[in-house]
């Protein structure tokens, strides 16, 4: 998998927003709010090839959680990212 081009992660206050850079794509619906851990993962994998294992390892390295919890969170996260159309196979 890899991240789609044309999106940039921006931080405003305590919000992390993934925004579409092009005017045609830009409106409030094209701003995807991410929590702290999702934003961290996006920064790490943006522009690179990755898979679920990559994200799981990153979560375990950065947060004090076990593999089962990390895998569960990554599965949910990848599903939401795919639905939002911000990653591709």
């Amino acid at each position, binding site marked *: 998998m890899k991240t789609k081009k044309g999106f940039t992660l921006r931080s*405003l206050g*305590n919000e992390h927003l993934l925004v579409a*850079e092009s005017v045609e794509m830009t*409106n409030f619906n094209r701003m995807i709010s991410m929590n702290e851990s999702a934003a961290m993962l996006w920064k790490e994998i943006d522009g690179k090839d990755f898979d679920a294992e990559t994200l799981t390892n990153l979560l375990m390295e950065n947060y004090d959680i076990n593999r089962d919890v990390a895998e569960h969170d990554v599965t949910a996260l990848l599903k939401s990212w795919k639905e939002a159309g911000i990653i591709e196979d």
Partner: protein
Amino acid sequence: MTTTEQQYFALMRAALWQQPVEFDRAPDWKGIMGIARHHTTEVLVADVASRLTGDNAPSDALLREMKASMRANLINQLELKQILTTAITALRDKGIESVLLKGFGLALLYPNPNLRQFGDIDLFVGLQQFHEACKVLRTLPGGYNWGDEVDSGRHYNIEFGHHPMEVHRVSADIENPKDLAIYANIEQDGLVDNRQTIDFEGFPLPVPSKEFMVFFTFLHAWEHFLITGVGWRQISDLAMSLHTYLHQPTASLTAPFDLDKLRSWITAMHLMEPWQAFGLLMVNYIGLPSSETPFYDPSCTRRAQKLYDRVMAEGNFRRPNRFKYRKPKGRIAKKTHAFIGIFIDFFQLAKVFPKQAFRELNSALKTSFSKNFQKK
């Protein structure tokens, strides 16, 4: 200074220098945000405020408002960015060099550029390329809706969707012919001979030389002070430009900042006293280190206090109308009205900067008489 003002400046310093913020008393959010809006700094303040927790945090309703204003500003910036890069690329393709004044050029000096508010694009192309540049920009493809085209002496206004762009033949309104001649040389140095290119998220953005950037930012704040009211946004811009260029030179800067050049420009335009008063405001209220404030003079406290009072009262573009009645009709009445206006401006300015007030009065009277004779 009121407690609310102290709290506003604490938040501004936190935003500009990425420092934690501490309050002695519970924040007066309504008052703070009122000041922030008055000075077009609400997004900067909202960024810090929305990260506060516990008793100091804003209410949920206010937080929602803050998030909405930050998001709206980001959307606006993204739209302006696309217009700007499209325009500069189109001009480059036709061999026309442009330079971005203010806007993103200043925003990029802030710790988080997405927090600096601005509503338009100011592109300098100079006298020689002016008509060709306007022609290129008018015919730019891309389905943009060009609006009304209004020509002013200084720039050409183009509406790009709902975003205005000002294409500048000159970068400042200067009436005094002697000052204008001096400024023309400054402009040539900073916008033509020594302009620089900085990286703007992968796009090569043409901006003025660093000395011109600082000088022009100050001149812009001064013009606001003279005409419409200056806010902490303009003063923060000046602080950020000084901090960037004097404290932490970036890789794109090949030469150290030329302080002698800056001094000669400020002196030549007879603006050292205003410069020093603005310097004290930046140091005392928004935390610019005095070591990064060239020609710093801590002795001008009375003048700085008067300037502070005016800044707080007027804000960005919010100077109250100097007349309490409507503009009169009839040729003589209109001219008398304008003449009185010149003297009201003089007395207002003389309270803070007497020398500059006499210079402005002299220029305004000359211009006024010359316009009247020309019309006859």
